[in-house]
């Protein structure tokens, strides 16, 4: 893991927190490694939902099929919101590496707004389907759609809460060893959600509309 190098940059060296007790137990690399394993479990959770979607996507039970239901512009807009939020999240981390507390918080705020935009679009889409009578109760296909995309949405919402907490922490404590580590882990989570969304966009929307 690259970010470990950050321990030795000037910005953090100057900070009193760098003299962590028991450095041989390397908290940073343990936390990051463990979070990768957590992401692996989350990945398998999504894999299970994806597999179920693939098995059930043609079980429309007289309801609409993917082709009839989905349009591309909306999910494309959602994709853009999430992709750009990943970029701005990366900027926040880069600013944190340089020890610039305020601009890190500012980039987190931009990321937050983009994430909120994504969630609003998603809720709108869900609401539209439900109003048309195509809720999760309609068919197995729609159940698996709502469960898969909804689980991703729930993750993004959790990420938003986490982001708000992180922004408050960075603002309050500054860039310390603790807050920096938590920021790195948060950004891993956020990038992971972006990756999952790419798969959702491809397998649910793109293939759904084009097939």
């Amino acid at each position, binding site marked *: 893991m690259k970010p470990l190098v950050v321990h030795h940059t000037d910005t953090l060296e100057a900070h009193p927190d760098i003299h962590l007790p028991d450095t041989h137990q390397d908290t940073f690399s343990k936390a990051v490694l463990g979070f990768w394993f957590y992401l692996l479990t989350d990945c398998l*959770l999504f894999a299970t939902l994806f597999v179920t979607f693939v098995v059930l996507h043609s079980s429309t039970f007289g309801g609409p099929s993917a082709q009839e239901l989905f349009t591309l512009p909306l999910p494309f807009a959602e994709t853009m919101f999430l992709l750009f939020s990943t970029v701005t999240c990366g900027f926040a981390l880069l600013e944190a590496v340089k020890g610039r507390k305020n601009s890190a918080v500012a980039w987190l705020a931009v990321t937050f707004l983009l994430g909120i935009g994504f969630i609003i679009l998603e809720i709108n889409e869900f609401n539209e389907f439900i109003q048309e009578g195509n809720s999760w109760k309609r068919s197995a296909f729609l159940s698996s759609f709502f469960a898969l995309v909804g689980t991703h949405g729930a993750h993004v919402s959790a990420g938003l809460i986490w982001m708000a907490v992180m922004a408050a922490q960075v603002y309050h404590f500054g860039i310390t060893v603790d807050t920096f580590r938590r920021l790195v882990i948060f950004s891993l989570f956020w990038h992971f959600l972006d990756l999952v969304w790419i798969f959702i966009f491809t397998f649910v929307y793109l293939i759904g509309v084009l097939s």
Partner: protein
Amino acid sequence: MFGRLSLDILKHNPMQDMAVVGMVLSGLGLIALITYLQRWKWLWNEWITTVDHKKIGIMYIVTVLLMFFKGFTDALMIRVQQALAVGDSHGILTAGHFQEVFSAHGTTMIFFVGMGMIFGFWNLIIPLQIGARDVAYPFLNAVSFWLFAGSGLLMYASLALGHFSEAGWLAYPPLSGIEYSPNEGVDYWIWIVQIAGIGSTLGAINFLVTVLKMRCEGMKFMKMPIFVWSSLCSMILIIFAFPILTATLVMLTLDRYMEMHFFTAGGGGNPMMYVNLIWAWGHPEVYILVLPAFGIFSEIVPTFSEKRLFGYMSMVWALIMIAFLSFIVWLHHFFTMGASPGVNAFFGVSTMLIAIPTGVKIFNWLFTKFRGRVHFESPMLWFFAFLLNFTIAGMTGVLLSSPPVDFQVHNSLFLIAHFHGMVIGGVLFGFFAGFTYWFPKFTGFFLSEKLNRYAFWCWFTGFLIAFMPLYMLGFMGATRRLDHYEEATGWHPLFLVVAVGAVVIVIGGAIQFLGLFWSIIDRKNNLDHTRGDPWNARTLEWSIPSPPPIYNFAILPVVDQIDPLWAIKRGVAPPQHKKYEDIHLPVNTGIGFYIGMLSMLFGFGMVWYMYWLSIASFVGILACLIVRLSSKEKHMIITAAEVKATEEALRRPV
């Protein structure tokens, strides 16, 4: 306000009433006892808020014993029912209650006894065997434990408040769907398993990072003790398998709570999808439980043979092979579901392949004893019983892996006999052996060897009497989960024999239980006078005093082979560090406990549709996490001088 909770949930049949009264009285008795002894503060400071892996390990074992009592009683009720309910007699249980009992038996034994035992042993043993002072995430460790304990409380709550699931330990839909199981039973099952499962996933991540990152100097992968290797494979299996369980349970939850159609008979749902998914978790789960038991025996056999483990490398590769193969055999649990012959053949062959690495392990253990000095202490007796039972059950497993044979005995008592041979003869006997073996490490005294031997012979003979006839009954057509059958089937005599075997096992269990208390009372006569290495063992946990001080290793060891303590005793170990240093340890916190209890309330609210309770608990959990993850990490420091003084006191001869 109270959802579907009403006073009706307190109505039970007399037998359940007795259990509930007993449970409430013993709970009150315990509270009275703690108050009388004025131990609340001690309980809170020393145990409930602890982040010390050794204490968490002991709490796991205590929880397991409590759950084992329940699962064991369930088993006994099944045996009594099947011995009595023939012809005109309907035994002691109604059909519905019987279904609850066997569902609870399987759920308790797998999720609480099995999983709890492996986490208990990992907590106790792994940091000591790899020469570490702690686990990777001590706080997360406490969270895992309290999720497990909270879920266990919910299991006991299901006994007193309302009903447990009647849909079997894996809750196949459509039976477990809202249409056919409208009451709270399946919901209890879902939330109990979900909460315990999430605790297990977090625990496995914790121990995986511990093993990967915290081994002492010189302990390369191929120098790790074999118990650590077997546990490592088991952790990886948990990380890959448990998310599937989580997702599957979520989908069943959505079916039941939000009228979705994943596994329903109508709406385009596919119940067979559930069966596939649950076994994609369920088969690896079997190996998650048995691999650590293999590891325990692989520690015990060399110690009691005074000989290095035969074929260390082949042992490691066998473990890795088993872990890999365990993911491509799940379909053998439902050959009869109607996959094509090609598919069934593939899964049949892959199942048979598992016998190869398992056979490698059996022969390695045998060759370890060959020309060794074998000591027949009770851990070794469990090993011999394991060897016999596991080989028999393994052979019948190979028999079952052939689809045409499986079609004949699918879901019969033959299957029950097979997998109980694996989980009792393999997993449980392994845990008994490990319990006896490592008991003096954490207490400083032995379990009574005499009582252990009595218990062993009861378990061993009782097991054979109770389970061998089940193979025959399976061939005679007796299916599993029968609450009643006719005299003309000719099964009754064998069921009576089985019940006798169960009684013999109960005697064995009672001797163990009393033996534990007797050993504690009589500990002055059972002291370990070596103060740390009573069995003349080979691995690092025996190089430190018993019970281990809070920091485990005063000086971190240096290792260059698989039997580091043996090397130290023989004078061939690499040069060790000599200097004492300041030791930093995490401080206690109650947040793990709060999260566990709030999760229990969350589950309870969901079961009874008291959504306000669930929402409040969820917000509480979130608040706990935010508080914890926003505070600075605190450490306590034990100075080098203190460490030196403690060590000298602990190592002074008695």
